């Protein structure tokens, strides 16, 4: 959830920066600053999308409390 939020914020900010840059109303100094920020945002967005650190977990509930267990995919395939 947090990751999604920051990703969406980053992307929105990136879109805004490109819009501002293409508006052509900025000074060179401002443009360079925005550009630098934009490149950083694009980088962080790409990392979020390409990051391969995914987890597959099983949500279990015990006495009204939730916990996550590792989900063993191979095991489930055996059952099929």
């Amino acid at each position, binding site marked *: *959830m947090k*990751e*999604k939020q920051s*990703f*969406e914020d980053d*992307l929105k900010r*990136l*879109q805004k*920066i*490109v819009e501002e*840059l*293409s508006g*052509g109303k900025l000074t*060179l100094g401002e*443009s*360079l600053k925005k*550009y630098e920020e*934009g*490149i950083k945002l*694009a980088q962080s*967005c*790409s990392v*979020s*999308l*390409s*990051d*391969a*650190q*995914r*987890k*597959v*977990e*099983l*949500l279990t*509930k015990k006495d009204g409390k*939730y916990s*996550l267990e590792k*989900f063993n*995919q191979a095991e*489930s*395939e055996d*059952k*099929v």
Partner: protein
Amino acid sequence: MPKPGPDLFSQVMGPQEQKHIYSVSEITQDIKVILENTFGGVWVEGEISNFRVATSGHFYFSLKDQSALLAAAMFVRANRELKFKLEDGQKVICFGKIDVYGVRGQYQLIVDKIEPKGLGAQQLAFEQLKNKLSKEGLFAPEHKRELPLMPFCLGIVTSTAGAAIRDILQILAKGAPGVSAVIRAVRVQGEPAAKEIAAGIEDLNKFGKVDLIIISRGGGSAEDLWSFNEEIVARAIYNSAIPVISAVGHQINITLSDLVADVFVETPSAAAKIIVDKRNALIAEVGSLRQEMIFIMSELIGNLKNELVALRHMLKSPLDRLLEKQQLLDELCNGLNQNIRYYLNISRERMVSLIEKLDALSPLAVLSRGYSLSVLLPGGEIIKEAAKIKPGDKVKTILAKGGFIGLVKEIVEERSRFC
């Protein structure tokens, strides 16, 4: 004695004249109105017998049960859509209206819809529930939640034993490796399935860390998929704060879950593909935003560079002109210095010659050569001719060194006298 003729006739016919006498057509018409108005849209359950297809394509058969029989007709425009074959002995539920076929004095059921009995009842229940939920607004487009731009954590409500979860995870692993999954394992068919699916959706909402929920199961018969048609599941989807994708079955078999869900797809794989597509689209978008930024900046810098070159060019000529002027100034300064020196020399020379001339003209110089100068006293006028003086005048004579004062003794008119 009874009277003959009209009396007898009136006696016999009289009472009958007061009753309403229907013609066959009339009474048939009245029966038609009553029957058709009363049974304008009815569900009738029965067993098919005497089934036959006319050359026109119309179906004619009878519906019967233990103690009665009802003639039925299903015309081409209705039976064209029929998904299954009708056979004698089949138990069915028909929907239609009672029609009176006056020519033969028969009433019959004109069938609009027909369903095999087992499913039919369920289908009826399904239709009723669907109508009810639809009226409540569960399927309303304005209630549909937008899927997140990019879900990074999926909640999946399905069986861990099915092909559905395997398909979804495989596609995600390949196409969206950054997306995590939280699986809420439930049964997806049989009596307790609906409750478990509904609870699974609620659990994921309470757990709260997922961006998107997929409820799924693989293909199966209509009965297998039935849990996804139950009200409790429909309501759980409707009440979910997190957007829900319904991915039930293997073909187009629309369940109520599909209708309530924010997005529905035909298969579990298709649900996973939505995520993969989203990711690919975003990667492309970020890439193109990045490109655009680089393009804008290089254009901006290029333009500024050109401007700078132009400005530098413009700056060059005044500078050159300045240098020219400086050179001129230097030359002028040199010239001026030389001129001044020249004039100074000339002036000095002229002064020297003037001084010499002055020297030459000085009376003193003449005196030094032995001449003297006399002036008449007391006036002091220089005496140039003898006629200007007379004996007895007092004169002062200036010599090269000193002088004297004397009295004029005699006037000599002729210069020659001295020579």
